[in-house]
């Protein structure tokens, strides 16, 4: 009897050592899912003529081969599809499209100044950044040295943090300000660190 591979649709000849698809519905579901096949659509279509090529399994999972079948380790699972099959989704293509979509939504033509960012008047850059909150500003210091300079250079105007470090020693909390290495002010520590209550 001629059998076909459920996965790659190849007709399996005598010496192909086909792998029988398990009867157990639960394991079948797993196999189909691993092969990225539509589980609902395929689970009941599997009949005695549907096998899998032994090439879909790792060699370590193959315990032996009989005349008609390949015997697998009881936990064996088929390998995810790697061959190009038109009927299956090309993952690379999907990822590429997704990346492109994300890129397009992020960039949009409007976000690229005609003459590039460098040609923009620094006044405009400053005003745009001035609308951002301190968390964003701190994060955007990492964009480039120019951004870092604009942000640090406008620390009087931008809402940058006034406190550089806050630490606890015994019953007291200490804070330092940017540019000051010594403790600027100390507070009596009242509550646990997680509550952050200090006086």
């Amino acid at each position, binding site marked *: 009897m001629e059998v076909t591979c459920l996965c790659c649709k190849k007709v399996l000849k005598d010496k192909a050592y086909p792998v029988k698809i398990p009867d157990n519905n639960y394991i079948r579901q797993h196999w189909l899912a691993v092969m990225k096949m539509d589980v609902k659509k395929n689970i009941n279509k599997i009949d005695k003529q549907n096998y899998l090529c032994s090439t879909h399994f790792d060699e370590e999972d193959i315990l032996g081969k009989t005349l008609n079948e390949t015997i697998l380790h009881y936990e064996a699972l088929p390998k995810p599809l790697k061959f190009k099959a038109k009927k299956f989704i090309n993952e690379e293509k999907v990822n590429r499209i997704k990346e492109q979509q994300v890129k397009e939504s992020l960039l949009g033509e409007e976000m690229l*100044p*005609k003459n590039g960012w460098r040609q923009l008047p620094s006044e*405009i850059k400053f005003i745009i950044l*001035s609308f*951002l909150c*301190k968390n964003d500003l701190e*994060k955007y210091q990492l964009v*480039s*040295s120019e951004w870092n300079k604009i942000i640090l250079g406008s620390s009087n105007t931008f809402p940058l943090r006034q406190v550089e470090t806050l630490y606890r020693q015994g019953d007291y909390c200490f804070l330092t300000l940017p540019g000051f290495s010594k403790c600027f002010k100390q507070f009596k520590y009242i509550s646990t660190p997680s509550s952050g209550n200090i006086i």
Partner: protein
Amino acid sequence: MATESANGVSSPELNERDVVITTNDNRNFTVKIGVARVSKTINNMIQDLGESLDLSSGIPLPNVDGPIFEKVLEWCEEHKNAPEIKVEQDPHTRERKWFTMTEWEEEYFRKFLSHLWDLAMAANYLEIPSLYYYTCQKLAERIKGRTPEQIREMFGIEDDLTEEEKAEIRRTNVWCTY
């Protein structure tokens, strides 16, 4: 041909008269002086020229092109009698307070989303504070919450910080050390 000139620069009648504005692509726009005066740059020109202002020969705008000026004019017409905007800061956080836009303004920016940079540049040159700040706010809105990598991609900025510099920035910004 008699040359028309602006008499009595501050008179309200003058605001109803037309002035020709020429953009850098040699397009002429006939605009009511009251509308053109939303731009401080144009207003200063009108005031400086005073009696010698030739309404028919036009005011040249060498740094703005026609299509953008058209959009700017739309804004000026809507805002010709609007009060000056107030730029405010939250006294506690020192963060800038974001402007609340009207429906018309939101629609305006939706319509010209792909020209935000040009609008910001034109508003900066023409000194139209409302358009300038609102456009910058719109641009900030699109930047907000993105990662530095995304920002670099957005604006085509080169990552010229060394790993040591980045580590130093990160170290400075980690402030809670207990």
